[in-house]
């Protein structure tokens, strides 16, 4: 199940060294009354691995399909290597795609599936067989080359699909939730394989997923989408540590929301002044909520503390506490070795471990 270590001739086209730069410029796509893409823009550097992350219906798959040429945008442009490909049909875009559902051609063996794109490019039979063999070796399936799709497991089928997409030396590799139909173990293995291959071939890759763990662990940058727009595009660490919007903070990782009041430096949080992330003047008027990560909050046992431990979840090295505080539930991570001190019902005081705090307008009561 490991990726072969030798690249041999399985490299990108020399003229395409480093992958193709891609620009999605102000894309709009509507389906009836639904605006799937609402001015979506994204710049992707050559050889970069970008994940489109978001909840169902946020427009991430539509964005990928527009890039692939399966959907036409109502307005906006798709640029690859500086050229506008918006009007180029899918079969002429040179984009390899791996689909969510198993998409191997049932009437062809694994080798013939991989060789299909090469046959369309009129490569000679011997050459394309050799190349299909190399690619199957690359994804660790050379022993299965003569098997039909129904004789392969789900993980193997997706690896053949990956080899097939790479065989045509695409300008851009598009992955539409390719791991979502697989079980957890195979998913983790294939995740590592895809990333290793992408890095070695330096191919520009766009990966659609609703699984934040996949996005954060694989991508160079993650584009969090909501309502057809990019909420934030950043590296996984920046996205997690410095979410620019409440949506990103709540969608990526775990955040607790707490009503706060303005103070001299920013907002009053857990009885102290806390600086606000970003521009102070950009703080919305009216009532405010603070969004805090569990690891950014500290808890100390105190008889007169305002928080009460209401729940504990063991997560291995850390234990997550639910602390009832000022009408909200604040999630706090403590070391598991110290968790015994936090019995249910224990009174605690809370403090902020982070430099600053993300503040947003108060969410209306549901």
């Amino acid at each position, binding site marked *: 199940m490991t990726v072969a270590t030798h690249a041999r001739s399985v490299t990108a086209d020399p003229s395409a060294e480093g992958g193709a730069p891609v620009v999605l410029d102000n894309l709009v796509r509507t389906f009836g009354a639904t605006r799937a893409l609402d001015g979506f823009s994204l710049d992707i550097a050559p050889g970069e691995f970008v994940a489109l992350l978001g909840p169902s219906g946020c427009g991430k798959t539509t964005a990928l399909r527009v890039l692939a040429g399966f959907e036409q945008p109502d307005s906006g442009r798709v640029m690859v290597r500086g050229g506008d490909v918006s009007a180029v049909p899918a079969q002429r*875009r040179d984009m390899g795609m791996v689909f969510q*559902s198993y998409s191997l*051609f049932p009437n062809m063996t694994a080798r013939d599936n991989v060789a299909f*794109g090469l046959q369309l490019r009129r490569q000679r039979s011997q050459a394309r067989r050799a190349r299909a063999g190399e690619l199957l070796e690359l994804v660790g399936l050379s022993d299965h080359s003569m098997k039909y*799709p129904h004789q392969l497991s789900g993980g193997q089928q997706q690896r053949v699909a990956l080899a*097939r*997409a790479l065989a045509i030396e695409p300008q851009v590799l598009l992955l539409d939730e390719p791991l979502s139909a697989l079980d957890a173990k195979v998913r983790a293995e294939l995740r590592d394989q895809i990333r290793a291959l992408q890095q070695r071939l330096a191919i520009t890759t766009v990966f659609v997923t609703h699984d934040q763990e996949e996005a954060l662990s694989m991508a160079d940058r993650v584009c969090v989408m909501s309502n057809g727009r990019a909420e934030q595009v950043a590296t996984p660490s920046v996205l997690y540590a410095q979410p620019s919007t409440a949506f990103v903070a709540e969608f990526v990782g775990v955040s607790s929301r707490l009503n706060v009041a303005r103070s001299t430096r920013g907002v009053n949080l857990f009885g102290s002044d806390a600086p606000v992330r970003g521009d102070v003047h950009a703080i919305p008027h009216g009532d405010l909520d603070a969004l805090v990560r569990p690891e950014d909050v500290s808890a100390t046992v105190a008889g007169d503390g305002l928080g009460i431990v209401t729940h504990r979840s063991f997560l291995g090295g850390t234990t997550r506490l639910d602390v009832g505080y000022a009408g909200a539930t604040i999630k706090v991570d403590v070391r598991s070795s110290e968790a015994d001190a936090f019995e249910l019902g224990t009174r605690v005081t809370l403090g902020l471990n982070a430099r600053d705090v993300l503040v947003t307008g108060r969410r209306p009561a549901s």
Partner: protein
Amino acid sequence: MASLVADNIVEFEPPTTPSRSPRRHRIRLGRGLILLVAAAYFLLPIYAALHFSLQDNNGNFSLQPITAIPSQPGLGSAFFLSMRLAIVTMAITMLLMVPTMIYVHLKLPRFRRVMEVITILPIVIPPIVLILGVLQAAPGWLKASPYLLSLVYVILAMPFVYRSLDAGLGALDVKTLVEASRSLGAGWVATIWRIIVPNLRSALLSATVLTLALVLGEFTMASLDLWSTLPVWIVAFDQTNAHVSTAVAMLSLLATWLLLTLIVTLDRSTSRQQRRKRTS
């Protein structure tokens, strides 16, 4: 210990429901009877025809009606006309229906209901109404050609062809296969010819054989259009030699059955493959 256990054993007797067992027996008997009546309904006429086709003019058993078949005047041309019509019908049907069905499955899935209703119409409208209308509307040059019948047979075959292809396409993830093919550089023709059609083999075969059976058995339209196809010849020759014409009808029936057996065998092999796919 053994005796203790033995002493404590209470013999288990299943609760008896006196009415159930005879009732089941009656139901089974009823089903058997219905099956027998149905079988007799279908098989007796066939048996009678077979019996009749193996008799000479005096009513004695004879293979003469069968051995005489090849030398009957007009049979060869009627058979080849029917075959030509069948081939042309199958070609037009496939060229028309396969791309249409793929398009409907891909782009107009909501239209499938309408298609179902439309394709039932040839069953609802009597063939005599259809052919009289066609003969009124068709241009002279087309009325002079036997292939007018092929055009009408395409409509007659639509209910069977639609259902076969719909089932075949329903078993495939057509959208993903088409998109995968296109992303690899294939145009529409290559995608249909090299990806969709090979995976519809069983459905296409089924549609083809049903069309063939329909064309080889259609009498009303051919007769009204004044073309001597195989069924028309059988009916006409019945006036000359009923034994031979019945023998030809029996051979035609046998050929159709063999084709249907072929479909069932291929379908079974396809379902076995699909089962293996599901379990793997």
